């Protein structure tokens, strides 16, 4: 087992129930501190791949290792502890409308038993960092889409995750704001967080110099490496 790899898919297949393969023979690795894009048309399997990474499913077959642990071999309690090291930004944000921005961001900490009073300062600082210092007590329905997204980002990173997964975070944004959001992710990446961003906007992705996986019909291929040059298909990257 290679402990230097944060995520490792080996011949992973995923199907829901008795349906066909949603993901087919996936082989990919993510090194700690890396930044990857994942592109592909809607329904290609990007979200399913992310769901495997944030442990919402176990592979139907093949081997998936996260933080050096084989997911199929871990019991539910161990998976819970692994999940705490993963931050997720959902396409629809999934903020809780009855909680304030501060309470929403604090959730990954309060669910581990920490009291809101103890984490209030850290949460406030993070909300200030994403430009929402004046909206600590605002509830999501009163915030704009962009502000809600920043709350969702703050919530995903408050517990200092080793791995940050973003599912179509730029989906509803215009290009300029989307670009600023990706700069924010780069900032987090520079601080050591491994980042995977799923997006169907290949034009936007091409403006950044990070490796890109493409998913088509459940098959994953590395189509561009760090040097921003196209990758020739080989047995390794297929």
């Amino acid at each position: 087992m290679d402990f230097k790899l944060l995520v490792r898919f080996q011949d992973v297949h995923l199907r829901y129930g008795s349906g066909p393969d949603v993901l087919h023979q996936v082989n990919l690795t993510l090194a700690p501190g890396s930044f990857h894009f994942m592109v592909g048309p809607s329904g290609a399997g990007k979200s399913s791949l992310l769901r495997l990474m944030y442990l919402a499913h176990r592979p139907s077959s093949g081997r998936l290792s996260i933080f050096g642990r084989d997911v199929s071999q871990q019991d539910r309690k161990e998976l819970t502890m692994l999940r705490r090291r993963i931050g997720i930004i959902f396409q629809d944000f999934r903020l809780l409308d009855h909680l304030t921005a501060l309470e929403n961001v604090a959730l990954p900490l309060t669910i581990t038993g920490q009291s809101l009073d103890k984490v209030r300062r850290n949460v406030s600082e993070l909300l200030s960092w994403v430009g929402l210092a004046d909206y600590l007590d605002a509830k999501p329905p009163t915030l704009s889409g962009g502000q809600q997204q920043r709350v969702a980002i703050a919530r995903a990173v408050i517990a200092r995750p080793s791995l940050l997964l973003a599912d179509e975070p730029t989906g509803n944004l215009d290009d300029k704001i989307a670009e600023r959001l990706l700069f924010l992710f780069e900032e987090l990446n520079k601080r050591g967080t491994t980042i995977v961003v799923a997006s169907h906007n290949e034009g936007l992705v091409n403006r950044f110099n990070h490796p890109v996986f493409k998913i088509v019909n459940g098959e994953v291929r590395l189509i561009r490496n760090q040097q921003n040059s196209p990758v020739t298909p080989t047995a390794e990257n297929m």
Partner: protein
Amino acid sequence: MFGNKNDVPLDRDASSRFLPWLIAMMVYLATMSLIIAITMNKLANRWDQGLSSSLTIQIPAEPSAEKRRTLEKQLKTFITKIENLDNISRVEQLNDTELNKLMEPWLGKDILLHDLPIPYLISIELDSSSAKTIDEIKLILAQDIPNASVDDHQRWLGNLLGLTKIIQIIALLVVILVGGAAALMVILVTRMGLAIHRQVVELFHHMGAHDSYIASRFQFHALKLSIVGGLSGLLLAGITVASFSSLLGQANSAILPTLTFTSGEWGLLLLMPLSASLIAMMTARLTVLRSLALMP
């Protein structure tokens, strides 16, 4: 360890509005059933204690004056013998006034007892119920006055006690059934809550919340609602009992029960809302844990 207690918005669910009412009705039924069981038990004990230690001896009347005088002598001898036995509290031959009073409901006032073949009645009360003493009395009676009959009330007392036992068993069955129905209701309400808040539950799960953390949201919600419902049900039962107690007091009948409870019985009644709350809490917890166990 409880984090933010309001992070799952269960208070806003429709189920939150009707659960306390359902629990209140359940606790009301269970408490009333328990009260019936307790009261029947006390009533049965009272009847048992009151009648199993008493006997009534009936001697047929003699038409001729001579035979009557002989019989009265035999009665006096019999009463003296009985008084000398152990475990005898009181022996009394009912006089004309007492016999009149007994016959009054059927024959009216001012009846002439000597015109009617009214039997002689002897009432015997024991210090404590004892089969040995009753056997001794029967033996003396057979020797002294062979044509007399003994009524130790066992036949109708047995039937009555059997009936009260059946009522008690039914009442306790109702308590158990009500507990089961309450648990089923909580399962349904919890499943409804899980379905409504599925996305929140999944979010917590994906963020690394332990199953027990998520379950605690539902179990404390169920506990809170069932405490409110349980206390309301107990209060309603209290009002019902107070009303019945007042009516029974006005009736002032020795055969009717009195609705008074010992501290232990009050404790048992207070256990009803407490049990309902604990059943609701544990049922909600187990329902959520079973549902979460299906997630990886």
